[in-house]
């Protein structure tokens, strides 16, 4: 555990350096902050425009649909802030920068995330949360403890989901360098999908197992029960985010490693994934001379 905490200052330094370099061009950074809000503003405005023409969308009136928009926007924008720049993985693979990342004695995924954490997207995440709060407050929800829990849990689970999708689709680039746009079909496509009530897509996505169990499903339970689409059952979908949380727990940066082809640790979840696998690199935490480390290394090779 001490080892594990020992690398935290290194990550912190990475993050601080990033933050400093991004904020140093103040005007640029401000323009970026404002511009990034624009994307989510347009998404929300689009939904409002659609509601000019219709009173209900997929069986949901505007106030309820806006809760879904808020859940989706908050979750996506936050995930985009935290891991969105993993999309650049394919440039790193192409240019060879990934090799430099792998040589360093730190976990690959945390490094990739911290190397260009897009702080300018913070404004978008804040706006997404603001939309969610405003929508929840104006939706006239009949609050119960379960619904309060849901409205807190749903965006968090949504963030984990979108983050996993970002990482998974970025990992495609290990096999398919030009896969970039395929990734957006699932990341941005997932955002568009969760922005609208799932009843809109009736016929294509069976409601008991939607591929993106983020916002819309959860919102169905959170919203008042007076009007429910025939497929708007909440229970079966509400359960899905929890599975996802188990599958891709925070602080377990496995996906990039798994994608790199190292499957060994998948069946050993008790062992911190970022520790083994790269022990053969002598520079790793300057431990090469420690006998116990050599022992561990031999252990890793024999396995």
């Amino acid at each position, binding site marked *: 555990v001490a080892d594990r905490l020992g690398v935290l200052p290194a990550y912190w330094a990475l993050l601080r350096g990033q933050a400093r370099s991004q904020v140093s061009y103040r005007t640029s950074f401000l323009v970026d902050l404002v511009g990034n809000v624009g994307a989510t503003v347009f998404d929300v405005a689009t939904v409002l425009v*659609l509601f000019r*023409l219709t009173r*209900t969308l997929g069986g949901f009136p505007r106030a309820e649909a806006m809760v879904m928009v808020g859940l989706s926007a908050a979750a996506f924008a936050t995930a985009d802030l935290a891991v969105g720049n993993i999309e650049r993985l394919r440039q790193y693979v192409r240019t060879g920068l990934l090799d430099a990342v792998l040589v360093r004695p730190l976990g690959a995924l945390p490094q990739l995330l911290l190397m260009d954490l897009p702080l300018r997207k913070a404004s978008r995440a804040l706006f997404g949360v603001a939309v969610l709060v405003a929508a929840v407050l104006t939706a006239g929800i009949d609050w119960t403890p379960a619904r309060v829990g849901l409205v807190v849990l749903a965006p968090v689970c949504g963030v984990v989901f979108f983050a996993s999708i970002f990482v998974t689709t970025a990992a495609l680039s290990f096999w398919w360098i*030009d896969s*970039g746009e395929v990734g957006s079909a699932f990341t941005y496509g997932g955002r568009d999908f969760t922005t609208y009530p799932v009843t809109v*897509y009736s016929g294509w996505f069976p409601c008991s197992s939607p591929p993106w169990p983020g916002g819309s499903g959860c919102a169905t339970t959170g919203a008042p029960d007076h009007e429910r689409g025939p497929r708007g059952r909440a229970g079966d979908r509400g359960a899905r985010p929890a599975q996802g949380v188990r599958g891709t727990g925070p602080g377990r940066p496995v996906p990039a490693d798994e994608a790199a082809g190292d499957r060994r640790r998948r069946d050993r979840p008790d062992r911190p994934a970022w520790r083994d696998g790269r022990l053969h690199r002598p520079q790793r935490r300057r431990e090469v001379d420690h006998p116990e480390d050599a022992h561990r290394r031999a252990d890793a090779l024999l396995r």
Partner: protein
Amino acid sequence: VGSVTATVPPPITRNIGWMFRTFAAITGSGFRRYSTYRQATLAGAFTNTVFGFLRCHVLLAVATGAGGVAAGYTPDQLATFVWVGQGLLAVVLLWGWNDLAERIRTGDVASDLLRPVHPVLNYLAADLGRAGYALLTRFVPPVVAGLLFFDVAIPSRWSTPPIFAISVVLAVVICFGCRYLVNATAYWLHDVRGPMMIWTFGSGVLAGLYFPLHFLPDWVTVPLWLATPFPSILQTPLDVVVERDDWPVQVGLVAVQAVWAGLILLACRAVQGAAERRLVVQGG
């Protein structure tokens, strides 16, 4: 249009055939350049199709909620609107072109200025080649997907396909001009992220990609159509192909496009001239 590089007097073009041959050669090279990115083409067509499904379902749900007809579009017309729009998106290349900005940033643009072809024409020719390739590879898959999975409106008047074809060509030219102008801000700003971001977010909504602009109130739509080039990039060709209006109106819309295409190209030329003067003043 000869070269207007600030350092070199424009060459006198004795034979206009030479210009067309050059233009055609550059167009061909643009076509070939993009045809080498086959994986990217496949990935892009897949993504456009996925988004087509999402957008189509949403707009159909709007039509259902609005009692069948939404802002004058029947569900069939909305399906055509979405799927042809998803195809055209790659043909006009709304997003993701920063070749010129990169060349300006790295200084490679200097070699463009040495060529005996005006940079705007040079890039326009290459972009038309790119659009030709996109028309074959990126336009067809989403449209076929739409035909297979949805009830789409198919043009019923013989006059619509030719008007649509002209409209698409003009849309490519207008979109190219807008992208050129956005990229050309790099001559002054060096970092085009800001203008590029505004363009990316603004163009999707204002061009009619996310929803048909007729969903907006008339007092927004009409000024938008006449005073900005955005609706001419996607909304006009799409309105033509779904036959929202009679043919005289269609021709009128395309005429608006033609005016915008001319204005934008003139603006590109003026901006390029100003930029070259600036480069010379800087000693470049």
